[in-house]
């Protein structure tokens, strides 16, 4: 079995509906942002992904996460 890592996954705005706000989750080492998006069931067709961040820095979907990182997922949001 692949070695696991702990990732804090945080969801915002509409992505919270029927899911969670923040959870400690385990993923195989080497998992990408895309893998986690799929795991928590984000349907990009329904509501496009706006911003992904790891430890407060913007990342792309192919970003490879490391143990202990915070992964935040936002739909397209704006205001001002």
């Amino acid at each position: 079995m692949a070695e696991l890592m702990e990732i804090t996954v945080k969801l915002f705005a509409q992505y919270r509906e029927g899911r969670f706000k923040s959870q400690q989750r385990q993923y195989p080492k080497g998992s990408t942002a895309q893998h986690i998006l799929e795991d928590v069931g984000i349907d990009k067709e329904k509501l496009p992904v706006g911003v992904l961040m790891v430890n407060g820095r913007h990342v792309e979907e192919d970003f490879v996460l490391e143990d202990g990182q915070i992964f935040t997922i936002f739909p397209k949001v704006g205001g001002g």
Partner: protein
Amino acid sequence: MSDKIYRVNMSNLSFKIEDVPQDWMGLGGRGLTSTIVAAEVDPECHPLGPNNKMVFAPGLLSGTSAANSGRNSLGAKSPLTGGIKESNVGGTIAGVMAKLGVKALIIEGMPEDDSTFYHIHVTKEHIEIERVPELVGKDNYFVLDSMLEKYDKKVAVMSIGRPGEMKMLISNISVKDPKGKLRSHGRGGLGAVMGSKKIKCITVDAEKFNEASASIVDMEKFKAASKVFTKALKDNPISGEGLPAFGTNVLVNIINEAGGLPTRNFRSGYSDNAENICGETMAENIKARGGSTTHGCHAGCVIQCSQTYNDKEGKYLTSGFEYEMIWAFGANLGIRDLDQIAKIDALMDDLGLDAIETGVTLGLAVDAGLIEFGDGDRAYEILKYEVSKGTHLGRIIGSGAGNLGKLYGLVRVPVVKNQSIPAYEPRAIKGQGVTYVTTPMGADHTAGYAVATNILNSGGHVDPLKKEGQVELARNLQIASAAVDSTGMCIFVAFPALDEPACLPALIDMINARFGTTLSIDDVMNLGKTILKTEHEFNLNAGLTKHDDRIPEFMKYEALPPHNVTWDFTNEEIDAFWDF
């Protein structure tokens, strides 16, 4: 019906209705107010003296059926910054003025007898100016109710509360919205300018013009463009979904997660209070308590980002409860109870206080030892019993952050051109910082919203923590914003405009259809450039220099957590902003 310039002289209480000079014909909103202020106001004048003027102008598309076109501009020399100011507001005023054929309302002079205040009532081709001693010492909702008793309920109303009467620099001009609540001509202390002219309120007659529309040369073309434009607004995930569902306050979490939410008077970019005050929590409360997540600040708004917010018993607390207010009192001043912030918001609407300037000043007042972080009761008391009455403490708070900082010998004073920095940390959202230092308005997020591209991935992405590309980004956005502020459009049309190719051409088609013109996108962007340069030149003539285009020094040597970033632009890099 051709539009006219309505001009009031408060020195002799007279008015004139003038034809629009040729040069001003193609201008509206900010383009017109800044042009008139630059042409008619001595940049060296005292902003609270007889030679300053107030110029109100609806946008080019205000009063038409175009979606989100109901924004009004107010221009003057600012007593807070000492430079030019354009303040943009929703509410009903822009639509009503445009339908009446008021291209601009200019108010000049000041009464020699300053023993009372006046009410100005604008009707078709006529203006009444009368003394209103019964309104002196009252606040905005009292004035609004009095006007609604006197006139048709659709009358447009603008007024000042007691802080404006006392010429405080944190005072706004309040503007009636479609539901009879208040929006604000905010920033720059413009309530004080109205107070200096001894004007308590301005009303514009809507009775005879309820159903009319501003004139349109080519109605078919207008309708076709309007349809494309409205669709772009509704289909965009931000203007069509996120803003209506969560309001502007949806930003608390994303700005906080990015490490750019100014916290405890700009000591950190991350607040542990975000979950208590964020848009998601606000929307949950609204759902559980009744109230409404959708409310348009002006007629014809299809975005509906505003809201009505009730307390736990389901009783109305406030409306127009926006991100900047909630940040200023929640993250920056540390109040953890959203309902308490809502109660303060309602009080500030009534008094006519600027959310950003007041909130930042109170955050700084913690460092001055006048209040503690998180003490919402004390914040409420200071506004309700000190500021409103003009006690010594009230006057100190009422003078804004820059002045309070000087009085108490403080160094961590977050202002640019003496105006408080809004809810985005310039060290961690550097493109926004470039806008703060370069805009002629003093620190102002709406002048060029680089947060869109630094944080929200609208219009691409420019890394918020790096300098590269930020000056160019801020320049392009400021040029575009100056143009949009001239159309009467809400600035949130920028989100679809940045990402959807059909949006901006449709907006320009509507302008061309209304006036029978053939403007191109380049023409409109050139208008934006001309406006910025006009404003910049006014400031230079007012005595501001490039040395005023600077971030507060503490941001250069205090590293901001969590990313531990400082402001690292050289002066030359910033000054290059004006190379266009």
